[in-house]
């Protein structure tokens, strides 16, 4: 079955898997952070991802901003969008059953997709090219985009920064406390709405970074562009253990490697590439439902 598999192809695939995994990680973290603090699977996350691609598109094409400024502005705007979605659709349901919030998130998801169709039109747009990332590097007989080198670096910096924020800072401590017990967190003087808004802002900003990576790698934008990466990154978060940030990163890289490597070793299955994520989801739910680094329960009985 494996014909002409060369070392070059293998190395190229590893580079590709690392870059795909880096991208998934940025989006998966948002799912896992929101789940950790609200016990909510935020279906709107994939559409926040989509909206952020349009932010980049319009900032570069209409406002004619240079890409570094456009990227930073888009990241900030997406953070604000995350805060707005939370305040409008989830905060009023703070005391409601969890299922109501879940349904609200599905509603927000459809709202944003249809908003996209009406306002941005359903016609595919081209993500603005950034030659600094998309130019091809040749090492020996291996070809890859510069992007593949930068993506893991950006992800590593973001993850280290995020873990520092959560483990070492005051707001991070408040996030950990709020994720376990709202009532006691309030008794400590923690404003839980502020903490939850911060969580949404961070998750959305990271999703924007992921969306920029996605746009540079697969430069097409349409209002439903977030659905498949959103589903896969949700699966990555579940594989790693939803609620656990390191788990989301592990799950994202695992999923990236599986997808790329199965196509490399069994090319006949390449048209089923998108199905592997779902097979892995089913497998993990059957074998280890809490995920690889699933939250352990330290509660005393």
């Amino acid at each position, binding site marked *: 079955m494996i014909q002409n598999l060369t070392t070059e192809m293998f190395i190229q695939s590893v580079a590709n898997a690392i870059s795909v995994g880096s991208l998934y990680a940025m989006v998966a973290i948002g799912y896992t952070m929101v789940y950790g603090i609200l016990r909510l699977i935020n279906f709107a996350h994939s559409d926040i991802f989509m909206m952020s691609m349009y932010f980049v598109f319009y900032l570069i094409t209409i406002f004619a901003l240079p890409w570094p400024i456009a990227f930073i502005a888009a990241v900030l705007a997406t953070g604000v969008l995350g805060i707005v979605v939370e305040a409008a659709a989830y905060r009023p349901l703070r005391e409601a059953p969890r299922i109501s919030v879940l349904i609200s998130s599905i509603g927000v998801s459809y709202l944003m997709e249809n908003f996209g169709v009406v306002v941005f039109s359903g016609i595919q747009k081209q993500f603005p090219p950034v030659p600094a990332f998309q130019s091809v590097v040749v090492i020996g007989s291996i070809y890859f985009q510069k992007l593949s080198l930068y993506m893991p670096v950006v992800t590593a910096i973001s993850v280290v920064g995020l873990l520092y924020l959560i483990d070492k800072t005051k707001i991070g401590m408040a996030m950990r*406390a709020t994720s376990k017990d709202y*009532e006691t967190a309030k*008794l400590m003087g923690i404003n839980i709405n502020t903490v939850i808004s911060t969580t949404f802002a961070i998750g959305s900003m990271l999703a924007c970074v992921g969306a920029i990576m996605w746009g540079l790698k697969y430069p097409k934008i349409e209002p439903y562009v977030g659905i498949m990466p959103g589903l896969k990154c949700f699966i990555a978060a579940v594989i790693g253990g939803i609620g656990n940030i390191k788990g989301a990163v592990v799950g994202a890289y695992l999923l990236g490697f599986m997808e790329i490597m199965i196509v490399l070793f069994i090319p006949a299955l390449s048209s089923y590439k998108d199905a592997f994520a779902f097979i892995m989801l089913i497998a993990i739910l059957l074998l280890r439902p809490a995920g690889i680094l699933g939250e352990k329960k330290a509660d*005393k009985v």
Partner: protein
Amino acid sequence: MIKVENLRVNYGSIEAVRGISFDVPDGGISTLIGANGAGKSTTLKAICGLIKPASGEILFNGESIGGKDTVAIVSKGISLVPEGRKIFADLTVLENLKIGAYLRKDSLKDDIDWVYSLFPRLEERHWQLGGTLSGGEQQMLAVGRALMSRPKLLMMDEPSLGLAPLIVSDIFSIIKEINSKGVTILLVEQNANMALKTADVGYVMETGEITLSGSGQSLLENDAVRAAYLGT
């Protein structure tokens, strides 16, 4: 310090607190005793804003705080040690103490040293996760955490619950020590004997109402209290 007037609290159609009035005098130890379900914990939760009162007044140093937001109430100098301790299991002992001082921006060193001097076990275990402590140690941590905000009023909900008798008497002697530093204390207890011995003022709650009040000593000697709560 606290003046409660005609406080009513409902859970849906259940009247948990039915128009109670009581005073917590400045600088003293007051206690609310009573059986399970009498409405004691509900009263504390209403004072710190975790439950909105249906009607009535709660005055803190003359200022109405009834129905205000918990964070606003806590920032005025009221601290609650919740029932069941509610330690943050995934935070270290030291982090649990620091989070108690969440609203403060000044140096915490003196306060942490004070808590460690009250509870040396916490210093030994400062790096451990809160969830790995024993029940008694968690209660010490819950008290220490509540002290970190430098409260004027410290409210404690069943601090003796589920603890060995020796540890219970430790906790009560520490309550007195904290009080001697000028912190007013409102104690809710089912352990009526220990609570009344410790308290200056006591109130007996039954099914949402205050049925008896007086000095701790006079309630200890009251026949009805002895029969109902002290088993003698």
